[in-house]
């Protein structure tokens, strides 16, 4: 079936104005927010992965019809929410059809007695939370992408929000799912109770096993009170130990974020206007902020910018200095902690948590740092543009591991990435059994006069080094960004023999292999 015939057939299944084969529409779906793709955009690559068509279904019946057509014609389908993924998970590698689900965005049901809300998968995160808020509820899910990601995307990638230690990750919130498999069959897990949690088959499968069309989620009453506090921990190790003790005591902080020395030190030097000069202003990425400022205000900070530019190209030296000096001079690591909910419980938990942090050597900085974190908690993503616009790159890697290997993982990744990029980290999703580390790195081509492709090679080197260290230590390659294309090569390392089971599942649910091909190592 050629492109025109395909579009015609899709239009018959949906509506003529809900199918497009125009170049602007196809180009708009040719990439997601994988920073590797942004390097291509900057290099003028155009749209190497433009799909043949884009379709916007409005009902699950239309999704089924689209899938049946695609299966019959062996046309690849890529489910698409808002394209905020950072691992290339929605790139139409084999062209085909992008199925944009954002016209399926209704609040289907709010069950106050059960404490659940059912939404269609295409709802944007901010809209979902707004709809719940005005009815007196919250989902409690606040990923930094909340403005630009959908419920379907959260489920596809096992998203985590900033309040995960209280409310859990998205896989903890989901109660049932509706999805369409690669044969066009519709499944609803709401009636499937018993010994197997069928929801978890689909959550995290990134559109390779089925297209999630709606989900029932556990919701909470909007919190009565919210406490936020800053602490400074003497060292990273004591901070990590404090996180472990808090979680293993069964306490449920809403927010629990520990910044490494580099991150904390940059906070002290950052002159981001909103920091009001406070030395512990908890912007998530001081590195990004500093780079941003240096690049964005080159005319007035030429020397600083040049110094940073040179440093970006020689990260090994700076990382070495950071490793050897900062733990001695940084004055500790910033930790942001909070509790919320019923005021009696939140007050009691706050006391217990603060006591635990103080017992670990933490110094209470009062509510200021926490409140500023809350006010600026989404700002870090705005730092990406100036860095890319100035010729550099920035990216993040979220991995997780058991407590006894946590610092091994931290040091191994830092050492592996150090030759290629600046690197720093925070620890923001802690559990009884372990913790995730959120690494941020930024770099540039080794030489400003480098041949085309140099920055892309540097970026790829950085990621290879980082993920090799991660798998060597035995950590997960992903915590909440998914796998997509960026980490696909490391799936066998991580999953071993389980990859065979995954492939068998794929054959069962998607026998034609049309659903998001080429992703997750499949």
């Amino acid at each position: 079936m050629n492109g025109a015939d395909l579009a015609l057939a899709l239009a018959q299944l949906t509506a003529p104005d809900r199918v497009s084969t125009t170049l602007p529409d196809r180009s708009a779906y040719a990439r997601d927010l994988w920073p590797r793709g942004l390097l291509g955009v900057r290099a003028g690559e155009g749209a190497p992965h433009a799909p043949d068509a884009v379709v916007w279904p409005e009902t699950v019946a239309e999704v089924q019809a689209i899938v049946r057509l695609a299966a019959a014609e062996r046309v690849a389908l890529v489910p698409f929410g808002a394209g905020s993924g950072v691992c290339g998970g929605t790139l139409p590698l084999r062209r085909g059809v992008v199925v944009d689900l954002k016209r399926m965005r209704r609040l289907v049901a709010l069950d106050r007695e059960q404490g659940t809300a059912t939404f269609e998968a295409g709802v944007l995160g901010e809209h979902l939370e707004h709809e719940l808020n005005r009815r007196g509820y919250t989902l409690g899910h606040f990923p930094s992408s909340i403005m630009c990601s959908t419920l379907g995307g959260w489920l596809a990638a096992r998203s985590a929000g900033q309040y995960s230690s209280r409310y859990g990750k998205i896989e903890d919130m989901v109660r049932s799912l509706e999805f369409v498999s690669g044969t066009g069959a519709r499944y609803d897990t709401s009636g499937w109770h018993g010994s197997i949690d069928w929801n978890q088959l689909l959550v995290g499968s990134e559109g390779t096993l089925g297209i999630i069309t709606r989900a029932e989620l556990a919701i909470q009453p909007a919190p009565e009170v919210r406490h936020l506090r800053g602490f400074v921990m003497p060292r990273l190790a004591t901070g990590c130990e404090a996180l472990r003790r808090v979680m293993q005591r069964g306490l449920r902080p809403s927010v629990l974020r520990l910044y490494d020395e580099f991150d904390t030190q940059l906070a002290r030097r950052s002159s981001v206007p909103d920091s009001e000069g406070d030395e512990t202003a908890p912007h998530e990425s001081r590195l990004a902020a500093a780079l941003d400022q240096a690049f964005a205000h080159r005319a007035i900070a030429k020397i600083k910018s040049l110094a940073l530019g040179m440093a970006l190209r020689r990260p090994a030296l700076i990382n070495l200095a950071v490793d050897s000096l900062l733990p001695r001079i940084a004055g500790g690591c910033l930790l942001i902690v909070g509790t919320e909910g019923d005021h009696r419980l939140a007050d009691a938990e706050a006391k217990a948590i603060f006591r635990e942090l103080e017992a670990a050597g933490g110094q209470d900085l009062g509510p200021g740092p926490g409140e500023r974190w809350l006010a600026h908690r989404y700002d870090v993503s705005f730092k990406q543009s100036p860095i890319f616009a100035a010729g550099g790159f920035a990216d993040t890697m979220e991995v997780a591991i058991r407590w006894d290997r946590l610092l091994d993982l931290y040091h191994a990744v830092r050492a592996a990435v150090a030759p290629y990029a600046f690197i720093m980290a925070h620890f923001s999703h802690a559990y009884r059994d372990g913790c995730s580390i959120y690494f941020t790195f930024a770099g540039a081509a080794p030489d400003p006069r480098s041949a085309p492709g140099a920055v892309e090679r540097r970026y790829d080197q950085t990621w290879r080094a980082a993920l090799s260290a991660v798998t060597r230590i035995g950590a997960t390659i992903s915590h909440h960004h998914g796998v997509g294309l960026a980490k696909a090569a490391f799936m066998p390392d991580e999953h071993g023999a389980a990859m065979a089971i995954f492939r068998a599942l794929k054959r069962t649910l998607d026998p034609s292999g049309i659903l998001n091909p080429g992703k997750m190592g499949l």
Partner: protein
Amino acid sequence: MLDLATSTRYCTYCPKLCRHTCPVSHAEARETLTPQTKMATLRVLNTGELPLDTTSSASLYGCTGCGACTEACRHEITPGRHLFTGRALAESGEAGHPALVGLTHRLRTVAERAAQTVAAQIPEARRATRGPTALFPACQAPELAPTALTLFDRAQAHLPVAKVSRLCGGYPLLAGGLPDAFRLHAETLSHELAGFDRVAVACPACAWAMKVEYPAHGVPLRPTVIHTSQLLAEVADRLTPTRKLPAAFYHDPCYLGRHLGLYEPPRQALRLALDEVREFSRCRATSECSGGGGLLPITMPKTAAAIARARLSEVHEAGLQRVVTGCATCQRQLHREGIVAYDLIEMVEQATRPVV
């Protein structure tokens, strides 16, 4: 304000952090119409990397200029304003939107007709070319001019209506990507209004254009520009309500709120008139657009209607069926979708009308 080149570069590399605010991309659910993609498209059109034609320029017209994206942007980028510049680029490359062909002539006709309507309704003695303050009715609702005069007379603010040949500040020309025509229009109007110290403009978009864009286009305007809601707030204490009208939602017009920063004056006036001024869950700086700005009702009428429907969902939910606003374009746009939409002036006039 960041310049066009920097803004489009920043937007190109942005993770679409303002997309949740965009009424057009929400109504259409198309990535092509997110502020980020529109600005990325403008970047490559501006640099010549993407050839300019009516297909490649189409997304530049998918914007109401509402400014909600700017409100969400930590870089304070103004996609709405930059996209108007993009439309000028498209026009100059003969790749403008087909629905806007002949816009200059069409606007002139509408504005002249509106001026004639006002002239027919308002006695010559109440129309002037000089004075301390004058009313400047909206071209979309010239018939409201007598109501406005009655209301301000009641408040002992005996104002004339500005006597002009064209009753429009020229915003549509700017939004249509016709900066030269806009400048010419502005020069004419500036000359005609030169005898006033202040003009109270009924249309928020034109008030913004006259206040901000005239100087930016090198056209000085002698009178200070205010919106009629500001004038109403000034004289509100001289008005006595004779009846309270049923509760209604207040819709913040984008150009009155986000662009001119006027949130309180219309509410202050409305509190005189209504039992209750009901707020949308998204109001003031985060208010949603009605779909009426940026010429969207002409270039993408179905989308504009869908935006209005989305805006009214809370009104239907509340069972009130009444909305008040301070913008004739918003009023018309919301009215089309089966709601009774009122102008602020109209409401206050009714509520302060003497009991016979």
